[in-house]
C-alpha cells in the first residue's frame, strides 16, 4: 500500500496523466468549515486585483482608457 502511494506521489510530481493513482481515495468528501483565513486570502487577492486593474488601465498605453 505504502509502495503504491509512493508511486502515485512520484507520478503527481512528474505531472503524469496516466497514473495508477486514479483509483484512489475519495478526495471530494469531508469539506472543512470555512475559516476566516480563507476569507482573507480571497478578499486580499481580489483587492490586489482591483488595484492592479486601476494601475494597469492608467499605465498601459493600449488600455481602453487610452483608446480613442
Amino acid at each position, binding site marked *: 500500500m505504502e509502495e503504491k502511494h509512493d508511486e502515485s506521489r512520484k507520478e503527481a*510530481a*512528474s505531472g503524469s*496523466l496516466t497514473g495508477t493513482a486514479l483509483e484512489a481515495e475519495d478526495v471530494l468528501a469531508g469539506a472543512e468549515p470555512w475559516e476566516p483565513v480563507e476569507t482573507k486570502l480571497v478578499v486580499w487577492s481580489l483587492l490586489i486585483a482591483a488595484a492592479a486593474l486601476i494601475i494597469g488601465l492608467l499605465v*498601459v498605453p493600449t*488600455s481602453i482608457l487610452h483608446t480613442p
Partner: protein
Amino acid sequence: MADLSNRRWYSGMLTQEDWWAVWLGVGFFFISLFNLAGVDLVGWITYPTKWVLYPPEGGKGAVSHAFYALGKKYSVTAKGFYKGLGWWSVLWTYVVFTIATCIGAAFMRWNLKRFFTGWTIIYFLTIATWFVGHHAFIAANKINMKQYGLNFALSLGGGGSFILALIVGLIIGNFFKPFANYLSEAAKPEWYIKTAIVTLGVKLGYLPIKLSGFSHKLGKEAASLTFDLFVAGAAATIVAYLIFWPGVYVISRKLFKLPRKTAAVLGSGISICGVSAAVATGGAVRAKPVVSIMVSALVVVWAVIELVILPGFFTHVWPGTNDPLVAGAAMGMSVKTDGADAAAGELMDEFMRNKIESETDGAVIWPSGIITASAVMTKVWIDMFIGIWAFVLALVWVYKFERRAGEKVPVSEVWHRFPKFVIGYFFCWFFLLALYFGPGQSGAVEAMPFLKSVKAGAVPIEKGMRKLFFMLTFLSLGIITDFKKLKEAQFGKMVWVYFVALFFFIIPVAIVIAYLFHHGMQIPNIAGFVQ
C-alpha cells in the same frame, strides 16, 4: 516542501522537458544564424503547400510540389540545392529532428527504443495529416481557389491540418488504446508545444524584419505592436489571475462543498496553466497525489473541448475580425494548457486571416502569427505566475492552515517552479530584435542584405519548425486524451465544478479583461505588398 535541499538552481537542465524545449528551440535558432556567415544549415526544413490531384492548365497545386524545403524560397546562399530536395525534405527533416529529439529523450531517461519507434510513427502520421489537410478543398479560400481549379473551398487555411491531426490523435487515443499506449512514450504535447513556443519567439523577433521587406514603416509598426502585446498581456494576466483563483476557490468550496486542498488545486488548475499549476499547487499545499492527477486529466480533456469550440466562437460570433487581439488575449487566459492554448491561437490565427481576406476580397491581409502571439503572450505571463502563486500558497498552508513548527519555504522554490521554456522564447525574440535595431538599422535600405540573411535562417525555424511542432502537438494531444475519464464516477463532481467555473466565470472574465487592455489594437495590413 521536503527533499528540496539537494536541488541547485541548475538542477534539471539536462533532464526536464522544459529545458529541452529551450535546447531544441534555441539550438536550431543558433544553427540558423550561420546564415550570417553565408552558410545555410536550416533550409532543408520541410513545409507543405496546397495541392489538388488534377491541377488546372497553368494553375497551381501539383502533388509533386506538395512538400518543399523552405530554403528553396528563402535561402540566400543555397537556393539551388534546396530547390532539388522537394519531397525529400520530409526525410531530411525526419532524420535531423529524430536525432535531436532522441538526444533529449536519452537525457530525460525515457525508453529510447520506444521513443524512437513512437516518434517515427507520430512524425509520419503528422506528415500524412499535414498533406491531407493542405488539399486545396480544405486549405484554399475564395481568393485563391480558382488557381486550383475549384469553385468552392472550406477556407480553413492551415487550421484544417490542425483539426485533422487532433481528430486522428483522438481516434487513436480513444479507439486504439493499446496502440495509443505504445505511442505514449513519444506523444509529448507539452514538450512539443514548449519547443514551438520558443520558436514563436523567433517569429515575434522576425516580424519587424519581415515587414521591413515590405516597407520601413511597417517594420517599425510590427516592432511596436509586439511590445504593446507584451505590456498589455502582462497587465491583463495579473488582474485576471488574481480574480480567477479566488473565484474558482469560492465556487469549489461554497457551491460544491469541496475540501480545502482539493479546492486549492482545482483553483490553480482551472485558473492558471492547468497541469503544471495543479502539480505545483498540489505540492505546495500537500494535497494527495490523486487530486493533482485528477485535475490534470480534467484540464487536458477540457482544454481539447475549448480548443474545438473557442477559435470558431471568437472568429464567427464575437469579437470576430473587429478585435482579433482581444480574442487572442482572451484565448490565452481561458485555455489551460500551453499546448491547447497555442494550438487554439494558431487555429484562430488561420480562421481570422482567412475570414478578413475573404470579407474584404483581399483588400486586407494580415501577417500570420500575430493573433497566435497574443494568445501565447497572456499564457506565458500566466505560466510565469505559477511559481509565485505556488510559493504564496505554500506560505499560507505552512504558516496558517497547518502551522508546521519550524518549517521554512525556500525562496528558490519560485525559480524551481518557473517555466523555463519562457526563457528560450524571450531570448530568441530579443536576440532578433537586437539584430533588427542594431546591425539591421531598423530596416534601413542599406541594411537589407544583412536582414535577408537573417530572414533566410529565421523563416525555416519560425515557419517550418514551429508549424511542424504545432502539428506534432495536436496529434499527441489527441493520443493522450481519453474521454472515458470524464465518465468515471469519481470525476463527476469535478467535471461540474470545472464546467461551471470555466464557462460561467473564467471565460467571461477573460473576455472582459482582454477587452479592457487590448480593445482597438490593430494588425498591420500587408495586402498592398503581397499582391
